[in-house]
């Protein structure tokens, strides 16, 4: 029987209240939202917080998908199911729906949240790769106010983020630029599992030319940061199969997969290349035809 170690439970009634609780309780407090990453870790005693601050009652403040002028703003407590079902999000960033379809299963998606996924900072986590690929930024609120950090700075390493004690991730912002297309490709051992390897791609096109492009990988390194070399290789290039293969090669070389029960490092490197090619191909297709 797996049961978490004892802890004290507090329920936040507002974002301000949550931040006050987190500030008062200090480094031994953890935020619980959907709980579908944290509770399994607590049951295995891999995580042993002294306090849990439950923010599930803050849906009114923290659950939304809003389109502003040049960006999408998504509340941290927005659940996977709502991200999956959001047509406006899928229209702007098709890779969100690609990824959400293969995250866990529908029952888990009823509870798990965007903010929880990013704050878990698991190197295999799909939405972290999506947000890295889309050049998202994270709004973190603390007692002293808000700060905005890029996904690059948000993830400091496995299970480690820029969110300090007394702070709460409240929103994720994704820039919208014209001519965009994106796609997410995942290989998993069975439905709903963690990725063996995932690759996300996003391109912004002017005619047949990729003005900007980004690639993000999951499960092949300490974090899901986007592949810097891929952006350089894509910038200003005509879209072509040769280009996708070249960027796939760069992605595979840049990553650092480990042999484990999900596959050998060699196999994962092969997947990183192939999934990058497929994701780029679909991104360009979507950018040029606006196919969802």
């Amino acid at each position, binding site marked *: 029987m797996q049961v978490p170690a004892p*802890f004290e*439970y507090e329920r936040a009634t507002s974002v301000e209240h949550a931040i006050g609780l987190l500030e008062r309780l200090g480094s031994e407090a953890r935020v*619980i939202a959907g709980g579908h990453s944290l509770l399994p870790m607590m049951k295995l005693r891999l995580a042993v917080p002294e306090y849990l601050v439950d923010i599930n009652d803050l849906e009114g403040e923290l659950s939304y998908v809003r389109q502003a002028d040049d960006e999408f703003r998504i509340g941290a407590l927005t659940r996977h199911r709502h991200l999956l079902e959001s047509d406006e999000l899928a229209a702007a960033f098709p890779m969100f729906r690609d990824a959400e379809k293969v995250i*866990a299963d*529908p*029952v*888990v998606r009823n*509870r798990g949240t965007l903010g929880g996924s990013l704050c878990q900072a698991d190197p295999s986590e799909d939405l972290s790769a999506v947000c890295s690929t889309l050049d998202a930024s994270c709004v973190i609120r603390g007692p002293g106010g808000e700060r905005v950090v890029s996904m690059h700075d948000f993830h400091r390493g496995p299970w480690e983020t820029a969110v300090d004690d007394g702070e709460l991730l409240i929103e994720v912002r994704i820039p919208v630029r014209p001519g965009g297309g994106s796609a997410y490709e995942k290989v998993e051992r069975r*439905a*709903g599992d963690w990725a063996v390897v995932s690759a996300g791609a996003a391109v912004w096109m002017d005619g047949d030319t990729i003005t900007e492009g980004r690639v993000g990988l999951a499960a092949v390194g300490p974090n899901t940061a986007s592949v810097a070399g891929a952006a350089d290789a894509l910038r200003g290039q005509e879209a072509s199969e040769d280009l996708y293969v070249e960027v796939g090669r760069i992605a595979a070389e840049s990553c650092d997969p480990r042999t484990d029960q999900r596959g050998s490092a060699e196999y994962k490197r092969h997947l990183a290349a192939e999934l990058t090619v497929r994701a780029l191909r679909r991104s360009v297709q979507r950018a040029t035809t606006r196919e969802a």
Partner: protein
Amino acid sequence: MQVTVTVNGTEQVRDVEPRMLLVHFLRDELGLTGTHWGCDTTNCGTCVVWVDDEPVKSCTTLAAMCSGHTVRTVEDLEQDGELDPVQQGFIECHGLQCGFCTPGMLMTARALLDRNTDPTEAEIREAISGQICRCTGYATIVRSIQWAAGQSAVSAMATTNGGQA
């Protein structure tokens, strides 16, 4: 800590440890053993119950998180001695052998049919993809849910036809 949870329409007040999982609250505190406790790792789905009308895995939910909320378990499907169509469907189409996965399957199926009265086979398979059955190979479970969907269509027709269908 004291928790107040409305379970199957009845308010339940209990003093529990904050670390108590919902599945143990239901089974051990309330004696509602229809909800099964399976893999304990959020994978098998036999512990699925509804929290605020949405299916969730009760092995990965704290009872404390449900305080002030409503929970519906498999015991609530039967109403006034009459089985829910999904329960009847599992009987008609042999949707279970050992029965261990059944409570979670039933609650997920009922939630699916409440949102989508005429699901395709693919939609049914997607809906139950968070549940594991080791007996049936899923074919009879899918058929059972299709049977239940058909019954809903029949009863809807009966209502619109003034019971003449």
